[in-house]
């Protein structure tokens, strides 16, 4: 069967559900953000949209899993899925690149210019006399008030170790899958999920600490902006990744996947490694230097 011709599904119903879901979700968010009279329906619309999207994902993945387990996918279909996942991850890399770009630009150009370096001499003299370029900073106007930063070799270091370990555990799971040892597979999967959850726990702690004790908020000038947007989007990816890992763990328990046929597993593993690598970059550029 694996060498049969290319499977082309007919009449996909989930995509249109997904489009409607996205439409509701973003319209709801937009209403919500705007406040004002119609804001009341915003949260509800957003929630309904999100629920629709989640429903769509369940339905869509269920279809795919069913087809996969029925053996409809030959190696070419598998290769298409792989291509899809690789390029999707590449697009995510570029999304993060935009925010890293903002961080580097601010640190290497914007802040020094405000401090009078290079072409910024007159900017500093006329607009911000006395302002010196330092990092971290919340700018010449001290936007958001005094704040302190989260030290790198503390919880962030711990979180680095947690994520690195989870990269190892998922590799162990992969080995177990290749050797068809179900028990070990499930164990390592659950361990990975647990590490993901632990990471999130510490990150939430860190955010609470930052807001309550350090005075560091999203509004703390350019430092707060880049810090929270980078770590925040990363945290969202960890959340999604953890949920996907959990789903895969359940599928492992349900007896899905074979040593030669487990694209779903690998896709999630790739995603998890990607999240891992982004964190390493974050740890280095946001916390350490």
């Amino acid at each position, binding site marked *: 069967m694996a060498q049969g011709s290319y499977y082309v599904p007919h009449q996909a119903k989930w995509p249109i559900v997904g489009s409607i879901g996205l439409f509701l979700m973003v319209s709801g968010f937009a209403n919500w953000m705007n406040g004002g009279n119609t804001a009341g329906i915003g949260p509800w619309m957003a929630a309904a949209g999100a629920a629709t999207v989640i429903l769509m994902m369940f339905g869509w993945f269920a279809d795919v899993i069913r087809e996969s387990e029925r053996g409809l996918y030959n190696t070419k279909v598998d290769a298409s899925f792989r291509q899809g996942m690789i390029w999707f991850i590449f697009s995510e890399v570029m999304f993060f690149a935009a925010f890293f770009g903002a961080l580097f630009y601010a640190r290497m150009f914007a802040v020094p*210019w*405000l401090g009078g370096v290079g*072409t*910024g001499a*007159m*900017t500093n003299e*006329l*607009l*911000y*006399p*006395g*302002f*010196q370029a330092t990092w971290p*900073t919340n*700018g*010449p*106007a*001290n936007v958001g008030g*005094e704040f302190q930063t989260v030290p790198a070799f503390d919880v962030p270091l711990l979180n680095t170790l947690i994520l690195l370990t989870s990269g190892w555990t998922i590799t162990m799971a992969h080995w177990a899958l290749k050797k068809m040892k179900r028990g070990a597979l499930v164990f390592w999967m659950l361990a990975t999920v647990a590490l993901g959850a632990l990471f999130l726990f510490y990150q939430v702690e860190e955010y609470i600490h930052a807001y309550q004790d350090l005075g560091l908020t999203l509004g703390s000038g350019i430092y707060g902006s880049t810090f929270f947007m980078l770590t925040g989007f990363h945290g969202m990816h960890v959340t999604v990744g953890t949920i996907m890992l959990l789903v895969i763990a359940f599928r492992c328990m349900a007896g899905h996947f074979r040593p030669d046929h487990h694209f779903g597993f690998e896709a999630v593993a790739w995603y998890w490694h990607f999240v891992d690598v982004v964190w390493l970059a974050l740890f280095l550029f946001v916390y350490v230097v």
Partner: protein
Amino acid sequence: MKRTNEMIVGLAMVAVITVITWGVFAVGDNMTAGVTPFSRDVYQLHMIVLGIVTVIGILVFAAMFTSIYLHRKSRGAEAAKFTHSTRAEIIWTVIPILILVAMAIPATRVLIDMEDTSGAEMNIKVTGYQWLWQYEYLEDGISFYSALDRDSNAARQIGSDISPREVDNYLLEVDKRMVVPTNTRIRVLLTSGDVIHSWWVPDLGWKRDAIPGMVNEAWTLIEEPGVYRGQCAELCGKDHGFMPVVVEAVSPEDYRAWVAEQTGGQQTAEVGQPLDEMDRDTLMAHGEDIYDAHCAACHREDGSGMQPAFPALAGNAVVTGDVSQHIDVVVNGRPGTAMAAFGQRLEARDIAAALTYTRNAFGNETGDLVQPADVVPLIDAQLDERLVSADRAAN
């Protein structure tokens, strides 16, 4: 035989296309050569590059039309079989590179010249606001605003019966020109108080963006006296098209006279001391001037605003309500909207007058008078806040 044919038709095509191009250029407008050393450099650069690309275009199109003319099926042309020629491809890679290098060299030279702003004899700080310019002569201590003149402004209103053709320099005239001396190396320091604008006078040969929170530099040296007109060149909101720049270059002697007039004149025009109490008539008269110059762009001269983005001030709850709140809105602005913090731009006197005017015009007969002394505390508080944060930043 074939080759000679192609040569003859090719040359004919070059001739025909050259004539057409010449005709096309002849009916059109060209860039101004301007009145400064830069503007002439830039113009020459423009002409060189234009000339080069025109020749390239003529040759490419001539080759193509030769082929179209000769190698038609209807003329019985048989398709050749070649698909490749390494030699030809190397030629048409290398020649364009050489041409580009030839363009890059003068461009680099001119650019390096223009970017060197050292050795200025005079500094003028230009600040863009929605939708007027502020000019501050750093050495001579002069500062004023420059907005679209009244005639143009009246004619440009939708449904106005005034034809633009009857207005002198329609949209290119201001109420107060930027006056500068000729033959003087002037450094222009550009910034903005709200959104990005761009200060452009074609005759000076450059434009440069005015960016909020940043200061850009450029310089100029005008050789001929005259009036040079330009416009804001970066989209800055609804009246972006109505934000002209007018530079009047006069001899250094005339410039000194103008400076004397400005500094001397201002004192006589002063309505007493800046913080003195003013009577109702003075407040209303001065307020109308300020309002028309600084507020009417958004809230309209009759206070009717432009719904829904720009609220009407006629019958407005804030304007007819609590005075302190009213002062607060105008001094500190509404962040995230076009309503700017006018405490940073206008003097207490001006704000007080504008407030009094809006509270008593357009049918808002509150009868309230706002005095400079009422406004000063808020301006001071605002200033304090900025100083404190600058201070903190310095530590």
